């Protein structure tokens, strides 16, 4: 590793970051059919993150397919921007600078509310983003606390903000999923400047 401590990202940002593993990912020449199946998309063999997770390909495959359905399924439910907001708030609360960078960019792209998303990154989970987004953020944060602090108040606030139960389920799934993703990203490697990725 050529990065020194002072090069490493130390603030939440929507800029593109890289991520470097602390353990050895598989090499493409190591991959069997079982690993390719686990990667789901062959292009993920270019990613050190997915190539590290490919050490356990069955879990990786299930994780990836759940991820895609929770975030990309266009069939109703929560607008994509707010699924990404939920992921961003979760990552902000857990302290995952890398995950927050990726998903805040998605939230901005899909909502066209880049400044509001940036306030969540800069000011933290108490930022005032308007009641609907505040309700989504508060729910994601409460679900991210350990033990979980999510209760009827969070549901009532989401409903008051206009979310139906399909949308609320997407808030729960997106936040819960980032409690999975954050722990992998935070524990298996670290964010690095984009050029070093």
């Amino acid at each position, binding site marked *: 590793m050529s990065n020194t401590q002072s090069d490493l990202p130390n603030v939440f940002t929507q800029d593109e970051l890289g991520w470097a593993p602390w353990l050895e990912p598989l090499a493409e020449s190591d991959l069997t059919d079982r690993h390719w199946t686990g990667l789901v998309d062959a292009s993920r063999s270019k990613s050190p993150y997915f190539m590290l997770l490919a050490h356990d390909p069955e879990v990786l495959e299930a994780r990836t*397919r759940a991820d895609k359905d929770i975030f990309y399924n266009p069939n109703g439910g929560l607008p994509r921007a707010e699924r990404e907001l939920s992921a961003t708030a979760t990552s902000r609360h857990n302290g995952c600078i890398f995950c927050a960078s990726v998903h805040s960019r998605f939230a901005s792209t899909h909502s066209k509310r880049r400044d509001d998303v940036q306030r969540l990154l800069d000011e933290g989970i108490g930022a005032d983003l308007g009641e609907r987004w505040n309700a989504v953020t508060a729910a994601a944060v409460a679900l991210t606390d350990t033990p979980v602090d999510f209760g009827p108040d969070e*549901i009532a606030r989401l409903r008051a903000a206009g979310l139906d139960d399909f949308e609320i389920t997407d808030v729960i799934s997106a936040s819960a999923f980032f409690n999975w993703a954050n722990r992998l990203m935070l524990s298996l490697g670290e964010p690095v400047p984009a050029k070093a990725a």
Partner: protein
Amino acid sequence: MSHDLIDQVLSITPGSHLDQLRRHREVARENIQKAYDALFAPRDTNEVSLVERLAIASFVTGLHGQIVLADHYAHLLSTSEGGVAVAALINEEIERGTTEGPYGTYPAGPLASENKQGPLYAVAPANRTHLGLRLRVALEHAHLLVFRPRDASREALHGLINAGWSTAGVVTISQLVAYLAFQTRIVEGLSTLAATDVTAPRLPKVAPASAIA
């Protein structure tokens, strides 16, 4: 109908409101179960044994205070070969390790003002020999990931390697703890949703096929 653990612990019946909500993301629903199967009925247990998986799962769900899941894993652990003695120790360690998260420190810089201190967990000295080095270090790593994931470090990861875990084993342990952080939250979130008044449109109630008592 194939077995689904989340349906089981939430007592979700086919056609119920929660069932409709879950089946709206059918692929996610199926793969959440497939990840569970991959972790607890794994293709091979060379890197992480089943007792080790269940001990970590019992510990992690216990730390989350998710009673139904914690009971599920504690039961599997205590009925697995060689698991009874470990189960008793895990219960002690859950009590010892219970706290509130997330806390931890940020890299030096502006975020340092958000640093939040909390307890550092280590397995009770009296339990170290019985649990063995591998499992002891894995439990301490699990506690780190549950409560203060932003304190995870290269050194912590190498502590696992030094205790005898392979790289593949570390990946599986990391997925295990991270998955359980997810699973506990899905269960908590959906059970809370189920317990509140329903305002979303629901399918009309269908009369039973046979009304004969």
